[in-house]
């Protein structure tokens, strides 16, 4: 099953490779990983999207917690949570296709943030599935470039991950 795990870790050189190394060394799946410092510059917040059986997910959580640099961890999928990913996609937009692409971006509540007479760059924030679905709609023939940040997640309401 797909799980989204969020953690707070020391914002130190090497902390990221400890996490990445753990996944490769133990053969765990990693779908996406995103990380940046928080309001407290000594801490980074990381979101990892992974998948595996319940037993594997349990081990992943335990192994991450065991890393000395990991200060707090929550498996967001175990309760109410929100998930957002940012995507920038550059598409070939020529002739008659331009109108359709613009409408498509609008339906998804995406924004065109850059345009030339033969390209659009669309910005879209949403769940990973929404992003996937826009890409599918546009079709690979028109896509020139895709940049995705990987998911960021946060718990709903009082589900807070803080030190």
């Amino acid at each position, binding site marked *: 099953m797909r799980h989204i795990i969020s953690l707070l870790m020391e914002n130190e050189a*090497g902390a990221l*490779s400890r996490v990445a190394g753990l996944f490769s060394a133990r053969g765990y799946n990693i779908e996406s990983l995103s990380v940046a410092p928080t309001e407290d510059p000594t801490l980074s917040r990381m979101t990892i999207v992974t998948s595996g059986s319940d037993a594997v997910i349990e081990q992943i959580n*335990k192994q991450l917690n065991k890393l*000395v*640099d990991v200060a*707090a961890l929550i498996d967001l999928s175990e309760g109410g949570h929100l998930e957002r990913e940012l995507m920038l996609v550059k598409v070939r937009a020529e002739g008659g296709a331009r109108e359709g692409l613009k409408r498509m971006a609008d339906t998804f509540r995406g924004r065109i943030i850059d345009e030339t007479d033969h390209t659009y760059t669309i910005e879209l924030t949403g769940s990973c599935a929404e992003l996937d679905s826009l890409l599918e709609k546009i079709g690979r023939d028109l896509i020139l470039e895709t940049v995705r940040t990987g998911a960021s997640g946060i718990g709903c309401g009082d589900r807070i991950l803080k030190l």
Partner: protein
Amino acid sequence: MELTGAEILIRCLQEEQVEYVFGYPGGAVLFIYDELFKQDKVKHVLVRHEQAAVHAADGYARSSDKVGVALVTSGPGLTNAVTGIATAYMDSTPMVVISGQVPTGAIGEDAFQEVDAVGITRPCVKHNYLVKDVKDIASTIKKAFYLAKSGRPGPVLVDIPKDVSNHRTAFEYPASVNIRSYHPAGKGDSGQIRHAAQMLLEAKRPMIYAGGGVVLSDASAQLTDLVRLLGFPCTNTLMGLGGLPASDKHFVGMLGMHGTYEANMAMQHCDVLLAVGARFDDRVIGNVEHFAEVPRKIIHIDIDPSSIAKRVKVDLPIVGDVNLVLDELLGVLRSGRQVPGAADMAAWWKQVNEWRAVGGGLRYKNSSEIIKPQFVIEKLHEITGGDAFITTDVGQHQMWTAQYYKFEKPRRWITSGGLGTMGFGLPAAMGVQMVNPGATVACVTGEGSIQMNIQELSTCKQFRLPIKIIALNNGYLGMVRQWQEFFHGNRYSETYMNALPDFVKLAEAYGHVGMRVEKPADVEPALKEAFARKHDLVFMDFRTDPTENVYPMVPGGRGLSEIILAEEL
């Protein structure tokens, strides 16, 4: 007053009461060696290869309750140390390894003797640090010692660039340490412990399976009390030997691949299993599906949550220090009035004793013609009164020692279990002898393994370490040859040890005493003579039966009850 980084490092080691550092010098650690030279509180043991420095620090730590310390230079010094670090990591030895690094300005430039020490060791340390500022040395060393010995112990590497060891700052050793992201477990959950007590009391076929965690936590007194209070059968893993006195009537021997028939059968058929500081290793439970075929409730006490439910499902996890958890469990059991059901226990012991009779415990066919390796270990046990510190290398000799040297006390049995590192035995024995001066220390080895760190005979000479080396020389990489015999149609591919040196002459060349023993009748007198030489290192080359195999054996990947006994072949 401002001190250099090197001075600060040595002061930190003094503050940590470090008596011995095992190491090897080089360019990146010159300032550190200079400061070592100027003081005499921290003594340095010059090994002949960095791998040996780390194994020596490992033996030092395992046979005491101290943190082992090793010091190596950058580049090849560090890479040579990696096998030792991985060995310590797998067996959870508390250790601090200090490595020199190229100057900060040169890092990343493929400088002379530069390797990414933190990167290379990351998967085999509990934690590691690159110290980029002299102001951080004291606090980093403080953290390193704290991490190494608290919670589940392990090696911690501190990499110090050369210029940092020469920069100056004020020295103050932190009085306490707090790592906000690190909270090792202590007491177990009281509710879970009460629940465990109830499950144990209601068991019909209970079993206690105790591992290295009992030794690491110095909890063998509590384990012994628990086993005797409940009257349950108890087995030890390879790493747990000595955790329960082998002479205790409840002890059913080691379990696993080369464990006894009764231990493996009881493990397979019990209805309630109490696992204490043991991690269900694949050499213990070869086939988890086969193990799961018999339903049983498992209670697992471990300080590291990731050891629990890793390979087998656990019904009642108790995260905590064995020491504290067993104290509390004993308290609960003693304050209640309930005892295990007498009829159930009698029936269960009857069954266990029947298994004992089938397997015959451990047995081998002795010979008056050729030396049987098991016989040497039995005699070794007899002559040392079962009270020696025994280190080993890896192979058949290691298993025979585990089986036939009946350990009565913890921390007497020093072996590489998790990584299975040939070359561990002799350097580990050096560390054991340094921290236990005057004690009897023997290294049981094979003619293959001993050659992996034979150069340490020189260190032993320099530091006058009267270790007794018991080489069970079967002329083969015996353990591998055994697998080839069983599973690869007797094709002994590259396992015959050709062109062996004359070990007697070799020992003599290093300034030690060498003995060759070829006849069974000479085993006992030779051992007596060797152990009577209190001040000499004696290298004993026992020519043993090259065809002998280790039994019982649960072939890799098989179930515990699919065990091969000696007479079946």
